[in-house]
């Protein structure tokens, strides 16, 4: 088992004829992801890496029965592309595009909710269910089939940690990079819920970052709802407090988003927080050993 993507994933690539879209279509395809089509207005009838291109998501869905989409279009057009996928009935949209204006994301969020569309990203590396489906730009070689769930707000830090997991023989059910943008699709909690319900996942590794209070809320959720062990790491413990942005930022989340607060929240929830990435496999081993007793 796994979450969100698997052998039944039928993927289309929005922006397939662009530089990045084309490149990663090749990599995903090579990994074995079932890519059924691409979208690039005006290029219907062409193919990219042997995959048929359509003028619109609607056309692509009609022709292929796609259920998942990955988006590589430039930031200015990303929100529109996400909506196009959503309105065409795509169930899971993974938006790689970086630099999408926050208001665009806020505007589309309720529409996605109405349509029941799940979104990952934007500004994220995507997700992978090792051995089944890669929907993203994650470097495939570091992943390994197994039973650890993995969620991260960061890109390369994900690779660093996953690599450590794999080297320590902790394979993964599904690894999800949710992206670090202020307003994004699925959050930690949404994914933890899914990992909790996934019979093959036995524990979850969660990589947080400073800013916002997603980690604090997540700690609360873990405390109340999770039966499976969670191990965390928070990046940015030494980051400068940053230039002040008026009062609203600090008012909106009761805390101020520092690493200390987040670590404290996790500790209160019984979630061990690694001091450095290399410590994660060990913490995981301890937690799992504890379970077996």
């Amino acid at each position, binding site marked *: 088992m796994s979450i969100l993507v698997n052998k039944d994933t039928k993927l289309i690539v929005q922006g397939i004829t662009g530089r990045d879209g084309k490149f990663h279509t090749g990599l995903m395809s090579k990994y074995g992801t079932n890519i059924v089509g691409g979208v690039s207005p005006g290029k219907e009838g062409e193919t990219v890496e042997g995959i048929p291109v359509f003028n619109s998501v609607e056309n692509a869905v009609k022709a292929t029965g796609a259920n998942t989409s990955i988006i590589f279009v430039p930031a200015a057009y990303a929100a529109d592309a996400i909506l196009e996928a959503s309105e065409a009935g795509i169930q899971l949209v993974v938006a790689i595009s970086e630099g999408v204006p926050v208001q665009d994301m806020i505007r589309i969020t309720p529409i996605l909710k109405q349509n029941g569309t799940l979104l990952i990203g934007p500004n994220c590396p995507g997700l992978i269910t090792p051995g089944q489906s890669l929907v993203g730009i994650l470097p495939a070689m570091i992943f390994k089939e197994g039973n650890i769930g993995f969620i991260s707000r960061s890109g390369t830090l994900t*690779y660093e940690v996953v690599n450590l997991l794999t080297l320590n023989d902790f394979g993964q059910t599904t690894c999800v990079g949710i992206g670090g943008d202020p307003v994004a699709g699925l959050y930690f909690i949404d994914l933890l819920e899914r990992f909790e319900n996934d019979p093959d996942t036995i524990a979850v590794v969660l990589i947080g970052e400073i800013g916002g209070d997603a980690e604090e809320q997540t700690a609360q959720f873990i405390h109340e709802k999770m039966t499976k062990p969670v191990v965390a790491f928070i990046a940015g413990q030494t980051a400068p407090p940053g230039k002040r942005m008026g009062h609203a930022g600090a008012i909106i989340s009761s805390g101020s988003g520092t690493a200390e607060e987040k670590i404290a929240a996790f500790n209160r929830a019984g979630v061990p927080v690694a001091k450095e990435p290399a410590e994660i496999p060990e913490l995981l081993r301890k937690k799992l050993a504890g379970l077996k007793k």
Partner: protein
Amino acid sequence: MKIHEYQARQIFRNYGIPVPDGILCYTVREVENAARELNCMTVVKAQVLTGGRGKSGGVKLARNVEEAVTAGKQILGMDIKGFTVEKVLVTKAADIEKEFYVGFTNDRNTKSVTLMASAEGGVEIEEVAKTNPEKIIKYPINPLTGLLDFQARNIAMQLFGNISHAQKAAAILTKLYKLYIETDATLAEINPLILTTDNEVLAIDGKMTFDDNALYRQPKILAMREPDAEELQEIAANEKGLSYIKLDGNIGCMVNGAGLAMATMDMIKLYGGSPANFLDIGGSSNPQKVIDAMNILLGDKNVKAVMINIFGGITRCDDVAKGLIKALEVLMTEIPIVVRLSGTNAAEGLALLKETGLPTVSSMSEAAQKAIELSKHK
């Protein structure tokens, strides 16, 4: 992107939010003329892109022209949290009956623009947020409808308790929301919003910040940018596809990815060192980026050692190695450099680096420890 109070006031005015008359001044002479022109009790306010002006003595009340001149002399040129005051705003002083706080910002959790409002206005609003959070109304706005008239009115009634004052405040809330959306703001805040003794509702101080990702479609906002020296450095780095923030330490870091960059800084700290910067070269494999990044790193005189930490995904380690080799040819630095390459094409990259004699290590921890050690030798 941040703007000054006087710029926020201008945006407020354009949207019909009442603000007291005011004049921007760069010299004491201009302050004198402004105070004379306004011909009333005035407030002289430092225009700097940081908070806490009031506490730092950057805001002064002046009963007459002489006092305004004195205030101007004191404030112009003063240092507030590292910012030198180059200009002041001289405004009409208002007769304050009561102070309120209103502001809009994006809320990650509700994924919406949220209105915050409090009858406890003034500078200590953050204290209120911590100690009496129930005194702050947080109202998430449905992005599909925007702030509705009845919502603005009902919230204003909660603050003002009087329908005539509330109608005026509601109109301001509606305009503030509109300008927030139309300028792609990430913060639009009036603190204090005041009720005057003659029953007017006025915006006394305004703060605005904007979404950098949306500046491409906000030419008028972009034109207001007044970056300081540090920001200019960051902007220059951005233009090269790099994300750079200078810090106080002595170990320069070059990393791909923001999360890994932060984790690298954390690691340096963990092992007793001190990072000189945050530097993310992003996800592309262009060797030129590495050259640009090295240029910036070595331009910082505090840097005693450099730690390069690359986990190749899209970034190819051999490209990084190539860029590094070229950079070293040009820059000919004496500063010790530790390189950690992992992931895509790491073997190829390490092979290329072998000839340079640069110390290479295989893990982040090792790299950090080695860099700290090297930084102490010099």
